[in-house]
């Protein structure tokens, strides 16, 4: 190896390691801080391990606080919204990709138009509609607005279009009706696409903050993990009075499920992003 190549390789690793540290160190430090006492946090804010480990923060979060209830609510909402989204998005995506019906073009164009609406613009509108439907302060109010999304329909349509047609035609000839063909033949083939959609949906719904804020603010028994967490410390002027070990233990608990899924199923995350990027 020439000295120039060696030098460039060393610089490359140096850059990558420095940035890996910048992106990961905050998480490691936060995890360590959850095992520190408040005094230790004030004295040693930088050390990425506790000197006198204690379980106080985790006891507060897992035993005494409302976190178990918030976690349960998050699970209910995330599972409900994700299952509905997989079913409805794939059904619509299949129809748009494969079935022959008049008006399909305009309907797909409408779905694309919906993609262009920035979510923040929906804050007041969603509140309005949920209030009129009497769904404020309920699980339905948290789940139904997230049960269909235009991005998911788009992803599933793309995926179905890439599948070979022969199997479906064979199923039809064997006498299966359209729904049976979709349910027994097409959906099993579409597993990678469905996993991608499920992960996008899980991550998005689990982390969702704005919807619980406007829908269940007044009803603590419906609070989800991110919203409940946010009530621990808001508008951090000065921040001297915050109980950092507890705040960060709550944060770690909120991050953990997505982190596990991310590490195990990383390639599906990457696929979701890459699909969008390459199409551009």
């Amino acid at each position: 190896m020439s000295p120039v190549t060696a030098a460039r390789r060393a610089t490359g690793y140096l850059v990558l390691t420095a940035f890996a540290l910048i992106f990961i160190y905050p998480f490691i430090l936060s995890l360590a801080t959850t095992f520190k006492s408040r005094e230790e946090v004030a004295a040693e804010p930088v050390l990425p391990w506790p000197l006198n480990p204690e379980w106080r923060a985790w006891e507060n979060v897992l035993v005494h606080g409302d976190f178990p209830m918030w976690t349960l609510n998050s699970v209910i909402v995330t599972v409900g919204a994700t299952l509905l989204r997989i079913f409805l998005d794939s059904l619509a995506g299949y129809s748009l990709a494969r079935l022959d019906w008049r008006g399909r073009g305009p309907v797909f164009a409408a779905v694309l138009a919906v993609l262009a609406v920035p979510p923040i613009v929906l804050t007041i509108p969603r509140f309005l509609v949920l209030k009129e439907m009497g769904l404020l302060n309920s699980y339905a109010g948290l789940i139904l607005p997230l049960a269909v999304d235009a991005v998911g329909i788009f992803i599933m349509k793309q995926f179905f279009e890439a599948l070979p047609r022969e199997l479906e035609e064979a199923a039809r000839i064997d006498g299966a009706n359209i729904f049976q063909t979709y349910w027994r033949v097409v959906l099993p083939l579409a597993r990678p696409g469905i996993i991608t959609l499920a992960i996008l949906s899980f991550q998005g719904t689990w982390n969702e903050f704005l919807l619980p804020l406007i829908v269940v603010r007044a009803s603590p028994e419906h609070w989800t993990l991110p919203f409940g967490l946010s009530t621990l410390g808001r508008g951090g002027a000065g921040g001297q009075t915050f109980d950092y070990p507890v705040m960060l233990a709550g944060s770690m608990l909120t991050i953990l499920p997505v982190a596990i899924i991310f590490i195990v199923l990383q390639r599906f995350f990457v696929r979701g992003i890459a699909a969008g990027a390459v199409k551009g």
Partner: protein
Amino acid sequence: MVDAARAGTAAPAAVPPPAGRPGRRLRRRPSRIRGRQALAGWLFVAPALLGLGLFLVAPILMAFWVSFRDWSGLAPLDTSTPTGTENYRDLLVESGVVQSDFAKSLRNNFYYVLGVVPAQTALSFFLAVVVNSKLLKGKTFFRTAFYFPSVTSSIAVAFIFIFLFSPSGVVNVLLSALLPGTVETVWLSEFKGVVHTVLGWLGVDTAPAFLGEHRLMGLSYWDWLSGPSVALLAIMILATWTTTGTFMLMFLAGLQNIPEELDEASLIDGATPRQRFFRVTLPLMRPTLFLVLTLGLIGTWQVFDQIYAMTAGGPQKTTLTPAYLIYRDGFENSAMGRAAAIAFILFALILAFTGIQRLLLRRED
């Protein structure tokens, strides 16, 4: 609500025109099957359309109607009174605290976009090029590490940053080690704009007469030119940190799409690495660059969660953004009509900015 990038969604901008291909072949079949397909086709999309219509289209139409009314959000909707264009006029024309708050939110968000979009784009492109280098191993590890912050909860990450930027936190410890003296900045309470701070170092502490006297939307030119406050700067750093990984993945996908022969051909032609980057890689990456800039622009104009959790618009309203104002006016100040009006102005603003950007980038071709 998070930037489009954090949500990890496929790109709205990346959408190809609707394909009319599938199903063509089936047209020749007997009409009984076509009829059944037409029915099934509609039945299959009906639930999704109902969902989108009920929670997206109908709400937007209703909110547009409400933006021309006075409604507290607490009383039933039919007790609201029509006010014509008053909500819009209060925000844009009539001087008062409503207008100056809106002006501040526009100023703050403008500086936020101006800082975050170039930073996240440049950094993610740079990291993608380094990660993609053939010389280096361990790509998967570094890719994972860089992308990880993007998938985590915005509130959890905001709390981590409150801790990092606390007066005795890591950031101040680090700066104290690097700079002379002890740094004790109370980041999230510091409202002085960075442009004002720099001018202060140069001896300009008060507004020059011209800038101080003239006003636009109730804010003096001097206040418009303040730059982002130190508190907003901390949130900008957070935003760059959480979005870089997603955009890096998009750039990586783009880089891996460049045919290897092109790179080899330019290598044989004797191009230097610098020439290869600027003459081969960069032109081929234009579509990805355009996508990342568009998503960045759309995302940064919607910053909300981090502001809610970290500063709630303070200190001295220097982290107010239109998105946060929608929440504050609608839910804390019970002015739903005005909040809806802000939402539509913001919508128009985002459409205008992405449109302008599209024009600018197209013209270079």
